């Protein structure tokens, strides 16, 4: 567990039940998680394990059916700019160009034109999209769109960045580049990142903490601190040893579930 006093995000005995017609789905069951400022936490698990539900509860898009979700010790009542979300399918505003997408948050906060412009310039630079400042989302590649999505969250002064399989739709090379860039941004800004993925390798490469979740009902199986030095080498024996352990934990529920 982290040693700092108040965790930036805390999940206390959170359960989430969805009612679909006459079906009851236990998406999340009695989850506990405390995240300290500056951590890079990955949530991994098979589909149906509740990792996206947990992320959406932290974002404020969903309310827990039981338990509490807190930020700096105060209940999360709804989405707000301190917790920015990066979606797998980008969710950029297609009618705004790169510049206006990144400036959306600052403008919504009521900042003046010059101030917004300064912020936008800074973050366009950060994600290396200077040449595409006036392009519209449909003119960008998937990797560029995701850079815009990251920049628009950072431009809005988010303290926690929530990422829902953000690189899942990208090709392998683009994914690796964006992983490197994300780590660089994280190390430079000391943001707190909660990152959902189904790739063990991606989780080990990025996180300093990997939370393994299992389905039916969705629950937290284990919480694993990683102290591998960075930059991490996916081909190293240490990396592969961790990968073996986490994969085993990830598949542990298969035995329990008589198929």
């Amino acid at each position, binding site marked *: 567990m982290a040693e700092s006093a108040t965790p930036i995000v805390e999940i206390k005995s959170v359960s989430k039940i969805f009612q679909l017609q006459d079906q009851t789905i236990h998406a999340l069951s009695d989850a506990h998680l405390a995240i300290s400022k500056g951590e890079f936490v990955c949530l991994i698990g098979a589909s149906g394990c509740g990792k996206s539900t947990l992320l959406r509860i932290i974002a404020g898009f969903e309310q827990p059916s039981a338990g509490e979700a807190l930020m700096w010790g105060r209940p999360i009542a709804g989405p707000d700019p301190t917790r920015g979300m990066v979606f797998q399918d980008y*969710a950029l505003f297609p009618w*705004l160009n790169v510049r206006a997408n990144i400036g959306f948050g600052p403008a*919504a906060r009521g900042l003046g034109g010059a101030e917004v412009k300064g912020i936008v310039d800074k973050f366009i630079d950060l994600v290396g999209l200077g040449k595409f400042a006036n392009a519209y989302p*449909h003119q960008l590649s998937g990797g560029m769109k995701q850079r815009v999505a990251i920049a628009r969250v950072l431009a809005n002064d988010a303290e926690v960045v929530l990422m829902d399989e953000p690189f899942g739709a990208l090709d392998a090379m683009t994914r690796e580049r964006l992983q490197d860039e994300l780590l660089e941004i994280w190390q430079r800004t000391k943001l707190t990142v909660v990152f959902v993925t189904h790739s063990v390798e991606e989780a080990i490469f990025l996180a300093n903490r990997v939370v393994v979740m299992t389905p039916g009902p969705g629950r937290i199986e284990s919480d694993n601190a990683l102290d591998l030095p960075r930059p991490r080498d996916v081909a190293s024996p240490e990396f592969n040893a961790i990968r073996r352990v986490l994969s085993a934990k990830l598949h542990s529920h298969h035995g329990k579930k008589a198929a």
Partner: protein
Amino acid sequence: MAIVETGSVPATAEDVAGPKSTRSTWTRLKPTVLALIVPLLLLAFWQVATTQHWTRLIPTPYAVAECMVDFAVGGIFDDAYSATLLTHLLASMSRVYGGFALAALFALPIGLMIGRMPWARMLLDPFLQVMRPIPVTAWLPLSMILFGLGAKSAFALVCLGAFYPILLNTVFGVRAVDPKLFEAASMLGCSGNAQFYKVVLPAAVPSIFTGLRLGLGLAWFVIVVGEMTGVPEGLGAVIMDGRTLSRTELVICGMIVIGLAGYLSDRVVVATGNRLLRWSPNHHG
């Protein structure tokens, strides 16, 4: 295991050599040439059909062309219709655009309301769905009773014709906004009513635009019915007069002018749309 790097792939940048200029000329002209084939074939068939006397009731293309010149600039027949094209065209245009503007004025706010407010949908949608299949022609008698003989009635009928496509596409556009965009806006600090202006409206613009385009097309479509209400001027009135006077060439002239005017009006709308909707990948008509 070793990875052997083979020699680099030879460059295959052999540019399309040859008569590049003739190629591009053809590429440029191709749409026009293809578009003209069907009308020209039809014209040829019309010419043959009338000169071979397969029908005696339809005038020859030449007679129509002659009538069109007289209609436009006069100097051939010197009758009541000589050199009146512009008058009739302007009269019809004022009804088409006026009726269309009136339709947009009603349909846009009602559409936004039906799309966004469940109670408005429950209140208005069933009623409007029943009214919608009633053709504009069927409204003609009632319209003449309500608005009297003349321009007001024509105005109302055109407005009615343009109303539904604008309304339905506005409702669709507002309801089809990707829910992710609402989440994205709210986590960026834009919530509540602000989302209507920042998310719903811009997201619905392509669909609203399609509705306006269809509505304007329909306004031209129903102008003849609209001008059956006893207005003295207008292309619809000319067609109705031509029919009464058995001047079929005048009827055809009216039809051609409506077709061309409707087409040009649509091109202007499409060009405007392409400028305004540069961001939309599927909006290049």
